[in-house]
């Protein structure tokens, strides 16, 4: 059996190296993507938490506004009643 030409052996070796390099790059990119995905997930969670904070604060402010309005109405009614009473 004939031995393969040297050029073929060199090519085969280069091909093997390229395959290894490709695999290494694939793993590296996968790992980077994983890190990026985790960061994105954290950012998403942060945005949701901030939205929740805003929601809670606005709900609280709205309730305070309603209570203030009720109180103002009550004060006004009391004033009207006081003016209309006999003393």
């Amino acid at each position, binding site marked *: 059996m004939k031995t393969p030409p040297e050029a073929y052996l060199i090519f085969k070796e280069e091909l093997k190296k390229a395959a290894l390099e490709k695999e290494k790059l694939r793993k590296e990119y996968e790992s980077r993507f994983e890190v990026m995905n985790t960061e994105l997930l954290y950012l998403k*969670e*942060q*945005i949701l*938490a901030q939205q*929740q*904070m805003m929601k*809670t*604060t606005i709900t*609280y402010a709205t309730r305070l506004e309603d209570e203030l309005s009720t109180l103002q109405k009550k004060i006004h009614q009391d004033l009207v009643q006081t003016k209309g009473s006999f003393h």
Partner: protein
Amino acid sequence: MKQPNSNPQSSVAQFKDHFDSRFARIAYHENTKTVLCELRAEYVPIEHFKDTFYRISELVKNGINEKFIFDKRALRAFHQPSMEWYFIVWKKEMYQYGLHRHRKILPQEPWFRKSVEIARKQIVQTYPDSIIDKLDIQYCETLEDAIAS
């Protein structure tokens, strides 16, 4: 005249590191039995938050239980479930190990402080039998204040 850090036994530099991560740093002072937790991120995911506090628990259970300083100045988002767990579960458990004094440092932003106050009120309303009223909690502006108070 008052000297800064006049008590060298409790200056920030005297704290020993216990745990360090992207999200938090934990240090402690053996003589004053003080644990310091400084958050390092704008937002701490709940799994990392709990992990940090379990590491603080280790110190408290080992007798570093006089005071806990929680520096939240880096935070920009308040995660309600994490805070509920911290308020209701962790503080209660640590109370059983003698930790009563809590010092907190909040970010300067007024909106954040107001949000924390509202969320805290909600937690207290939702869990009326919590041990919050048994704790000595103070809000401080600087680490030095928190160490001294």
